[in-house]
């Protein structure tokens, strides 16, 4: 008897009413619409972009203001700006995350202030970051429209994301390790160097990959800072055009550049997908490792 009660399917225990069915239908419809919209965007991009995509497109210099040729200088500039922004954001972000997770109490006023500041920073529209970068780096520090100015502006932008994700990674390292290190009379610095950072490394890598994705997708903040010169930047002081800015320029300011814009869009989309895939892989490995630790 008890068996029968326990194995009875749930649906039979409860009468399904018409409003239930309507609600289910509504939720399913909306979800399908959202997923469909995303699929539409991707398919549209692929349909217009793929025919123009080739190895040559990646390796050639652009001709005729980008209407023909490839995007080689754009790829180089994108890589340079990305490297500058990460080289600045990673040490600063890691130090902040360490401060928040290891050195000050979670409930302290300073921690609250820093966290609040990061949240506000994360909510600032990127065009505002662009204006700020333009005022500070381009004009005040006299960097001009350059890879350096663009990279630094991007660093400010990805900092909140990187700090938050790295802090989470550090916090997810079991407290047992900290207590063990304390009980052995080790300094917090030694514990961080030899135990906590290595244990949190996979999570920090995820933070790094997420930040790269964010930086890669940015156009507005770079228009006023790194500029849109379509040449290979010879130094950090030269202006350079990233993938996202290239798409904007081709679509808005170069008549007849749409197809090239689409092809560049496919390249950017591919890079972002690759980064997401990397995050998923690292995340899975990280999850497995934390389980291993808590075994």
């Amino acid at each position, binding site marked *: 008897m008890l068996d029968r009660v326990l194995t009875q399917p749930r649906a039979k225990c409860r009468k399904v009413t018409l409003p239930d069915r309507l609600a289910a239908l509504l939720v399913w419809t909306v979800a399908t619409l959202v997923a469909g919209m995303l699929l539409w965007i991707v398919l549209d991009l692929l349909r217009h972009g793929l025919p123009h995509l080739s190895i040559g497109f990646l390796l050639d210099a652009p001709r005729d203001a980008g209407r023909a040729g490839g995007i080689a200088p754009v790829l180089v500039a994108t890589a340079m700006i990305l490297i500058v922004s990460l080289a600045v954001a990673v040490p600063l972000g890691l130090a902040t995350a360490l401060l928040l997770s290891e050195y000050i109490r979670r409930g302290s006023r300073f921690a609250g202030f820093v966290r609040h500041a990061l949240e506000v920073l994360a909510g600032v529209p990127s065009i505002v970051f662009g204006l700020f970068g333009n005022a500070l780096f381009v004009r005040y520090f006299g960097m001009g429209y350059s890879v350096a100015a663009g990279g630094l502006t991007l660093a400010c932008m990805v900092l909140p994301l990187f700090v938050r994700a790295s802090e989470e990674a550090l916090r997810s390292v079991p407290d*047992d390790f900290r*207590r063990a290190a304390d*009980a*052995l009379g080790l300094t917090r610095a030694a514990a961080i160097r030899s*135990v906590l950072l290595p244990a949190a490394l996979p999570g920090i890598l995820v933070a790094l990959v997420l930040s790269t994705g964010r930086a890669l997708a940015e156009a507005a903040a770079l228009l006023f800072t790194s500029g849109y010169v379509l040449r290979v930047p010879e130094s950090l002081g030269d202006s350079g055009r990233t993938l996202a800015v290239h798409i904007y320029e081709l679509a808005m300011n170069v008549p007849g550049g749409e197809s090239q814009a689409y092809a560049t869009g496919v390249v950017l989309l591919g890079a972002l997908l690759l980064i997401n895939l990397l995050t998923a892989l690292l995340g899975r490995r990280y999850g497995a490792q934390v389980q291993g630790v808590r075994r």
Partner: protein
Amino acid sequence: MTTTEKAFRPWHVPASRPACCDVKRPALQAVGLGVRFSGRPVLADVSLDMHHGCITAIVGPSGCGKSTFLASLNRMLDFEEGAALTGDVRFHGESILGADLDAQSLRRRIGLIAQRPNPFPLSIRRNLAFPLREHGVRDRPEQERCIEESLRQVGLWSEVCDRLDQPALALSGGQQQRLCLARALALEPEVLLLDEPCSALDPLASGVVEDLIVDLRGRYTIVVVTHNLAQARRIADDMAVFWIEDGVGRIVETGSADELFTRPRDAVTRAYIAGARG
């Protein structure tokens, strides 16, 4: 006796007191010690001498402040939010509560082993080498010698000597706990504080760790918190019974383990030992 036999040894076998356990000489002393967390008293008026080379067992029901007491003996309470101490803790007659005391080197001399094994997520070798290096043992051969010696002391050498570079977290629970003990021993402490070292282990592993504690008697001053009276009776020289009165942990009786088990003076101790309370 094999390990299995030892693990299931009847609990009434009395522990014999070796000559090296010198009752006259207290290594660690708690003097009228009280602990408050954010103003709320947790421990009050705890006075206890822990003798050089002896095993002192702290017993009592859950929540009576045994672990807090242990943590106050090597300044681990420094890390607890809002913890305040009154009274004194003396190590070889000198207070360890002073603000100018080097708490890190104190913790090297007074090691604490946690209830749950907590090896670092490093290799077996690095688990021992890293604290050694941080405490100034930088010479590689010297490190290797220390590592082997401590692993031998806890009986782990023969089990792991061919896989020192494998992750410590792949070891079994009992092996991990012995590794943690070896990690503390490598730093050549004088006192070992053990916070229910066997409670997270299965009976077999628990027996191995217990035998190990007995082996270390005489060489180290050992303070062990346990809620296992049978274990306390098997291993302890001295004993202190903690109890909660009005929500505050206090000592109700101290003395040699034999005495407390055979002729308890306090009614609470008598009931606790008889299994009627706690």
